[in-house]
């Protein structure tokens, strides 16, 4: 008997909305979460805008004990906790338990500890004050910090795994969660990913000259995937989380079901055949997408919407080319395509999970969110696909199948096929 994997809860900390209702509203209206960052101007950064969630640190007291919150400094951990605990509550379950939840796994992605918080650690060590660091540094410096805080709060006691695959992290985490349920290792998986692009990580991207630097005085226009005036991406921060469950297990407790994960794939182009540390090998991308479709039992014609990676760099046209070549559909049969990054920037490790939450909301509420800042599409892109396929206004229509893909540094690819639950 083949198990089915469904989504029963979601939570999100997005630059354009925290919590599902606010995020849904922002998606439908095309609300930008990109803001001017005066600090980045003072530091002589070329790009001075970022996708920043309007996150109130003190609200964490609604999620954690005073003792745990005291000494918590890692912003990425705060984001991950709120998204994950909101998803858990959304799926109809309480936080408290004395018994370990043996049936529930946690696969949560993360890229790096909060370097700004770690700066204080480095300063103390260099100042010969190592004795003053205290007990709370290691648990927040470790890459598994986010996962450990989440699983500790909820008593999750199946596989507890922190994955990291650059910009493909989020979709990869969800895929791993799907696989654990599909193969019978876990009944339920709390999955997702978090990212806090602190000043130092942001600066490193700025130095690579891959960020948009011409819209500092118009922050909401700065993130421009597929546009001819796109000059780079806009770093974003946040977290997305989903509760995945074995269908029968979810039904037995009367859980609400948002949508179904049909399958997916994650691979690498091997940094060969045009693939490098920073560029994808098109053959790898193509194999990843086709494998996702094959193991989901879906034909390219059935895809209603592609939620692209599409960051706002030169790579956008290559990505469209890859989708076009891989799906082998005529122009008139090509699916709609959108990029949430036009609204929130590129949330790196968190991109895949936030975009998956957005994809599921489009399936549930039957709409395709607009691509904002696309008044001037790249002609090389509109030479491949019809202008109408990249909507700039919300489209209300039935959305049954979404292909959600992300591609990351290290030439890693990840793709999920999401479906309306029927």
């Amino acid at each position: 008997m083949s198990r089915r994997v469904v989504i029963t809860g979601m939570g999100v900390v997005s630059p354009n909305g925290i919590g599902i209702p606010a995020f849904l509203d922002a998606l439908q209206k095309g609300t930008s979460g990109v803001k001017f960052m005066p600090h980045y101007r003072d530091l002589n950064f070329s790009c001075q805008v970022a996708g920043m969630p309007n996150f109130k640190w003190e609200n964490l007291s609604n999620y954690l004990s005073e003792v745990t919150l005291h000494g918590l400094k890692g912003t990425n951990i705060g984001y991950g906790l709120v998204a994950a605990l909101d998803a858990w509550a959304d799926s109809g379950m309480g936080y408290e338990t004395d018994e370990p939840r043996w049936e529930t796994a946690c696969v949560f992605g993360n890229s790096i500890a909060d370097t700004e918080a770690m700066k204080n650690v480095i300063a103390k060590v260099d100042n010969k004050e190592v004795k003053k660091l205290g007990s709370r540094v290691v648990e927040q410096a470790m890459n598994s910090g986010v996962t450990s805080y989440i699983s500790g709060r909820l008593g999750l006691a199946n596989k507890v795994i922190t994955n990291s695959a650059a910009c493909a992290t989020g979709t990869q985490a969800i895929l791993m969660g799907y696989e654990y349920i599909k193969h019978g290792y876990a009944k339920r998986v709390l999955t997702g990913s978090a990212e806090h692009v602190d000043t130092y990580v942001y600066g490193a991207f700025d130095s690579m000259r891959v960020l948009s630097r011409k819209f500092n005085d118009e922050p909401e226009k700065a993130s421009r995937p597929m546009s001819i005036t796109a000059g780079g991406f806009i770093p974003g921060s946040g977290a997305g989380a989903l509760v995945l469950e074995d269908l029968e297990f979810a039904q037995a407790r009367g859980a609400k079901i948002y949508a179904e994960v049909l399958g997916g794939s994650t691979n690498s182009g091997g940094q060969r055949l045009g693939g490098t540390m920073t560029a994808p090998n098109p053959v790898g991308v193509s194999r990843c997408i086709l494998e996702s479709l094959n193991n989901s039992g879906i034909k390219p014609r059935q895809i209603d919407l592609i939620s692209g990676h599409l960051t706002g760099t030169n790579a956008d046209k290559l990505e469209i080319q890859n989708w076009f070549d891989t799906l082998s559909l005529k122009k008139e049969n090509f699916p709609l395509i959108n990029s949430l990054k036009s609204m929130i920037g590129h949330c790196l490790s968190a991109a895949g999970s936030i975009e998956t939450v957005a994809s599921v909301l489009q399936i549930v509420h039957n709409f395709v969110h607009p691509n904002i800042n696309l008044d001037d599409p790249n002609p090389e892109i509109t030479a491949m696909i019809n202008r109408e396929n990249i909507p700039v206004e919300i489209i209300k229509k039935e959305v049954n199948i979404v292909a959600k893909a992300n591609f990351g540094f290290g030439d890693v690819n990840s793709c999920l096929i999401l479906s309306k639950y029927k």
Partner: protein
Amino acid sequence: MTRQEILNELKKVISPYTTNKEMLAGINENTDLIKDLKINSANLVDIIIDAESNYDIEIDYDDADKMMNVGSCIDIISQKIAQK
């Protein structure tokens, strides 16, 4: 500082590390930090660091190991204050 004064001050130092505020309000010299106040043993080091800055003293590793209940905390702290 009298032992009572140190104890009153110690309550404030310990407060962020225990959720058991009722027990904290009624602590005496025999109250055990881990068993009674349910303080995570890893956090004892944070209490020592906070006590050092609060009383402007230095507590070495050997003395820190002895600070398991309220009475022994007061012993060490009053000893260090006297040595200032």
